[in-house]
């Protein structure tokens, strides 16, 4: 039985975040394809009735409607991860760190995500300004990840992946779509690789699978 419904646009990094989390948790769900571009269906009256903010994704389960991506990750982990590893809420410090990264994820969406929409779909924003913001966010992210490298750690919080990693992953990974390459960001590159190596990882256009992890017929 399907456990929730995702109103989905395949090229959206935020929609992908939810698909990725569900895949990593092995959760089955239904999708409703929304014509974000060029149809702007997310701003149609039926969609606005469901989500007055006019954004995607939207997650519905029973009578619940979630419209904030980071909240969806928290809900998925709380509901479907009995180990509590993906969303560790017991320790106040750990919990604070996870929630802190969810805020960072929102800033990445607002900067890298906006720069990407401008580059790919000619979104009506100041392209140079959002690109500058996005570069600053990525530099800040690289700095914090480098601290994790110094501490001998791979993941954003603790010693295993959490919703913090999944929340930040898509727009960092997709930044080359906005012309922001990962060349000068070694800590980001290695963390992206770690996320892509997770069992059950799924792809989206712009984020391909790691062929070297598949059983090859040759080599």
């Amino acid at each position, binding site marked *: 039985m399907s456990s929730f419904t995702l109103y989905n646009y395949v090229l959206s990094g935020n929609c992908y975040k939810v698909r990725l989390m569900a895949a990593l948790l092995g959760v089955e769900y239904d999708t409703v394809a929304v014509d974000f571009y060029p149809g702007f269906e997310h701003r149609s009256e039926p969609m606005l009735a469901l989500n007055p903010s006019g954004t995607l994704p939207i997650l519905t389960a029973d009578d619940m409607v979630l419209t904030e991506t980071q909240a969806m990750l928290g809900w998925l982990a709380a509901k479907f991860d009995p180990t509590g590893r993906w969303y560790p809420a017991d320790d106040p410090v750990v919990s604070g760190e996870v929630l802190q990264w969810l805020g960072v994820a929102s800033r990445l969406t607002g900067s890298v995500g906006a720069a990407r929409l401008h580059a790919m779909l000619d979104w009506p924003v100041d392209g140079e300004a959002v690109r500058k913001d996005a570069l600053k966010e990525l530099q800040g992210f690289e700095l914090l990840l480098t601290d994790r490298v110094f501490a001998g750690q791979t993941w954003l919080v603790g010693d295993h992946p959490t919703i913090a990693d999944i929340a930040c992953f898509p727009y960092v990974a997709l930044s080359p779509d906005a012309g922001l390459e990962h060349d000068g960001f070694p800590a980001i590159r290695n963390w992206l690789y770690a996320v892509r190596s997770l069992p059950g990882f799924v792809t989206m256009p712009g984020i*391909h699978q790691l062929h070297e992890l598949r059983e090859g017929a040759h080599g």
Partner: protein
Amino acid sequence: MSTLPVGLSRDLSAKRVMRATVGGQDLVVWRATNGEISAWDNRCPHRGMALSHGFVRGNTLACLYHGWHYNGAGTCTYIPAHPDLDPPATIRTNRFSVVEQDGVIWVRTDGEAQAPDLPGGLEPLRVFIVAASADQVQCGAAQVPYEGQMADAGAVLHFGAVSVMLLLSPLGDGRTQVTTLASAGLTVAQRSALSRWCEATRRHVEAQQEEAA
């Protein structure tokens, strides 16, 4: 072009691929399963695809586009569309000389790479890119205090007991990649603080450029 750093050994483990640039030359740098490192023109001889999108299979690099495999000598060893074909030896990548020394990966695009002798007691800290020339970074870095202390200007910046050295690689587009070395044996907190000094240096140098523009 001289021998220039393209990254840190610790940031490229076995079976991993990265893109790098020296002096406008787009490079793929990759490490085979056996640890051997290679630096090539970032272009598949078949269709020109960036090899940095490729993946390592054993001790070969496979292009993501059509899966052609190249060994450490740059020779094509396997073409998936023609599995029984022994590929002609003329199909090869454009290789550059690469050496690893002091935890740094050094590349030279016009001759044999030879890493310089660095002062002792230093180890890699981190790599970052500044939107300014190498000279501007070198001058600007000496003007940024660390823990309230100004450095004595020189090839190595001394902040009391903590030393920092910046290795500068012009990327060829007005930006410079900075490979930072710092005193060996620092605590995590000290390395973290120096990493923030790197960010402060970037901001300082880039602000100087904006003022001048």
